[in-house]
C-alpha cells in the first residue's frame, strides 16, 4: 500500500421512516454533512454502497444519479453492492482508491430508502441477499435463518433466551444516548422476551428495523489531511474482506461466521494489533443473536461465550469491550446500504471524542464489522486516531 488513508469528514442524514424525502434527498444530506465536516471544496471520486434501490425504489444507475444531485459530475462514481455489507464494501473501495493514489479526496456514501414499499415487499427485497434457488424458494426469510443460527448456538453452548435479549437491552440503552437513533426507547429483557414472535426464538425486539437513511465519509491521504484538516485525524489502520457461502446449509459449522473470522484476522494482521486492543466496536447486529456470533468471531470473547458476555455487561458502555455504543442496527436503525458507512461515522465520532454521553473514554482504536446476508460477506475496518 503506497499511502496512508484517513477519514477527515463524516455525515449522517436523518434516519427513520422518511416518507417525505427521496433516496437522492437523504444521500445528498449525508454527503453535504460529510463535506462540510471535512471542510473540503471538492471531491475527486465517489463510491456509494446500496443494496437494492432497484427493488425498493425502482432506481438503478445510482452512482451517476447521486453524483448529479450532489453537483459533482463528471467525477468517477460507482455504486457497489454486497447486500447488507454494501456500505462496508464502499469504504474499502474508497480506501483502495486513495491508498493507490488514484484520487486525492474521495467521498464514500451509503444509502437505502426502504419505506417506499410495504413490509411484504421489503421482506422480499431483503431476501434477495439469501440464496434464491436453495433458500428463498423454499420459503425462508432472514429472521428464519438467524432463528436457526440462534437455536444451534443455544443447543451447543447453552446460550439462553435472556442472554440474547440482553443484546437488545444494551443496544437500546446505547441508542437512548444517540440523537440520530430511529428507536431510542429503552427496553427490558422481559419486554424483548414477550414481544411479538417473528421466528422462534426471535421476537420483534430481536430484529433491526426497516429504515430510510444515508451516511457519508470523506477519505484522503495522510499528507493531504495534514494540510487541510483541523480535526483529529482518524487513520484506517487495517481492513479485512472475506466471503462465504450465502446459503446457511452449505456451512460446516452453524455457530461460526467464517467470513467474519477471516476478515477480522486479515484486519488485525494489517493493523498489527490484537482484539484486546480494540477500544470500541460497531458490529452488524441485524438480529440480537448476530451480535453474539460476531463478538465471538472477532475474538472479543471465546467461542460460545457471547451470550454470557452480553449478560455480564462486557459489551456495554463502560465494559471491557464496548460494542455498538451508537445503538447498533437494532436501535439506531438499519438502512442496509448505509449501515457499513454509518459504523465508520460512529467510530470516527468516538475516536474524535465527540460522542457526548455515549463516549467511550480514552478510545484510540475502533473497529467496524459489516456483514451481508447471514454472513456470506463480511468487512472489517480498524481505525486509529493519530
Amino acid at each position: 500500500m503506497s499511502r496512508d488513508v484517513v477519514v477527515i469528514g463524516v455525515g449522517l442524514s436523518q434516519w427513520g421512516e422518511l416518507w417525505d424525502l427521496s433516496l437522492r434527498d437523504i444521500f445528498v444530506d449525508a454527503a453535504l454533512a460529510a463535506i462540510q465536516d471535512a471542510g473540503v471544496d471538492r471531491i475527486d471520486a465517489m463510491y456509494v454502497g446500496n443494496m437494492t434501490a432497484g427493488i425498493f425504489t425502482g432506481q438503478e444507475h445510482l452512482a451517476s444519479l447521486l453524483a448529479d444531485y450532489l453537483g459533482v459530475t463528471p467525477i468517477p462514481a460507482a455504486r457497489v453492492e454486497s447486500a447488507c455489507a454494501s456500505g462496508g464494501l464502499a469504504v474499502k473501495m474508497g480506501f483502495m482508491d486513495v491508498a493507490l493514489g488514484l484520487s486525492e479526496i474521495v467521498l464514500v456514501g451509503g444509502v437505502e430508502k426502504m419505506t417506499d414499499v410495504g413490509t411484504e415487499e421489503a421482506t422480499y427485497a431483503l431476501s434477495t441477499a439469501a440464496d434464491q434457488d436453495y433458500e428463498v424458494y423454499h420459503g425462508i426469510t432472514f429472521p428464519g435463518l438467524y432463528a436457526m443460527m440462534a437455536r444451534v448456538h443455544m443447543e451447543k453452548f447453552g446460550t439462553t433466551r435472556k442472554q440474547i435479549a440482553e443484546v437488545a437491552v444494551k443496544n437500546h440503552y446505547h441508542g437512548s444516548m444517540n440523537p440520530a437513533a430511529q428507536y431510542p426507547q429503552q427496553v427490558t429483557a422481559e419486554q424483548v422476551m414477550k414481544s411479538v414472535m417473528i421466528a422462534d426464538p426471535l421476537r420483534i425486539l430481536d430484529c433491526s428495523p426497516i429504515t430510510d437513511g444515508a451516511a457519508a465519509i470523506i477519505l484522503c491521504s495522510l499528507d493531504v489531511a495534514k494540510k487541510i484538516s483541523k480535526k483529529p485525524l482518524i487513520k484506517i489502520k487495517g481492513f479485512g474482506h472475506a466471503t462465504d457461502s450465502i446459503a446457511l446449509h452449505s456451512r460446516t459449522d452453524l455457530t461460526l461466521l467464517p467470513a467474519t473470522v477471516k476478515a477480522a484476522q486479515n484486519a488485525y494482521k494489517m493493523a498489527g494489533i490484537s482484539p484486546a486492543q480494540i477500544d470500541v466496536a460497531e458490529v452488524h447486529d441485524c438480529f440480537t443473536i448476530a451480535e453474539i456470533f460476531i463478538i465471538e468471531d472477532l475474538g472479543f470473547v471465546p467461542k460460545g461465550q457471547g451470550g454470557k458476555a452480553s449478560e455480564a455487561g462486557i459489551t456495554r458502555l463502560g465494559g471491557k469491550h464496548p460494542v455498538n455504543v451508537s445503538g447498533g442496527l437494532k436501535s439506531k436503525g438499519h438502512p442496509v446500504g448505509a449501515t457499513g458507512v454509518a459504523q465508520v461515522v460512529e467510530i470516527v465520532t468516538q475516536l474524535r471524542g465527540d460522542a457526548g454521553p455515549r463516549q467511550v473514554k480514552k478510545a484510540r482504536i475502533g473497529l467496524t464489522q459489516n456483514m451481508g446476508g447471514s454472513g456470506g460477506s463480511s468487512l472489517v475496518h480498524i481505525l486509529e486516531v493519530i
Partner: protein
Amino acid sequence: MAGIVGYGSYIPKYRIRVEEIAKQWGADAESYRKGLMVEEKSVPALDQDTITMAVEASLRALSRAGINPLEIGAVYVGSESHPYAVKPSGTTLAEAIAATPEVHCADFEFACKAGSEAMFVALQLVQTGSMKYALAVGADTSQGAPGDALEYTASAGAAAFIMGTENLLATCEHTYSFMTDTPDFWRREHQFYPQHGGRFTGEPAYFKHITGCGEALLQKSGLKPQDFAYAVFHQPNGKFPIRVGRMLGFSKEQISQGLLCPRIGNTYSGSSPLGLTAILDAAKPGDLVFMVSYGSGAGSDGFIWKVTERIEQVRNAAPLTWDIINGEKNYLDYGLYSKYRRKIIKNN
C-alpha cells in the same frame, strides 16, 4: 344556528373476538389485542348492509327528532360499502323512512370520513335556509382482507343525524375541514378488499390530518381542550384516538365515553359519528363536544357541538349506544363469520 335535532345509532348484535380471528391465522391474539387495543368487533348479519343499518339508525334519529319525515329536504349516506356501485343507498333509505319524493339525495364516499362529510353538508344546507331538515348518515359494513391486520377491526355500524335550525339538542358552534392528497389506504374498482400503506397510515396520514384539523378548529374557536366535556376522534383502533387526543391536549377521561372501537371495532364511516351518539347519550346541557373525523386519501372534518337542554327530553326516545353495545350479543366462530361476511366464494 344549525345543529342536531335528532340522532340514532345502530350496531349489529353479532360479534367476533380477536382470539377467534387470530386462531384462524396462527397469529398471536395477545399482540393484536394489545397492539390495536381491540377486544372484539361487530359483524353484520347476512341480510344486513349499509342501507339496512342506515334505515335502523335513521328511524331512531326520527324518534328523537319527533318530526314529520316529509319535512326532510335532503338524505345523505356516507359509506365506503354502499351495496351498489351504481344506484344510491340514499334512495332506499329515503323511501324506507317515508321522506320521498320531495327530497335531495346523494351518497358520499371518502373512506372513513364519508359520514362526517354527509353531516358537514347537511349542516350547511339547513344553515342556508334552503330546507328545514337534512338527514346525514355514516354507515359501513367495512372490509378487511382475510389475514390482514384490518380483519381484526373492520366492523359494522351506523349513526344518523337529523340537522335543523330549531329545537336543537346540540348546536354546531364551529366546523373546519383539512384535506391533502395522501394515498394511505384505498380500494380500487372491482377489488374485494382495500390495500393500505402499513405504518404510513399513521404519522403522515391519521395523525397529521386529525392534528391539523383539530389545532385549526381550536384556534378558530378560541377554545382550549379543557373547555370541552368530551372529545371524539376517528377510531381505526383503540390506541390511535387516545394518542391523537393526547397530542391535541385532551385527556383519556374526555375521550372514553365516545371510544367504542375496543368493543365494536372500526365502523369506518360510522366511527366518530357513532362515538358522538354515545357522547350525546351522556352529555349534560351546556357541555361542549370536540369531534374530528378522519378519512384515508386523506382528510378530516372537525365539529364543535354545544349540547342544549333538549337533550334531556329526547335522549331516551331511542336506545342508547352503550346499551346497544352491552346488550344482546351473538358470538360467531370464524366459519360463521366467513359466511356472514360472504368471504366463502363458490368456485363453480
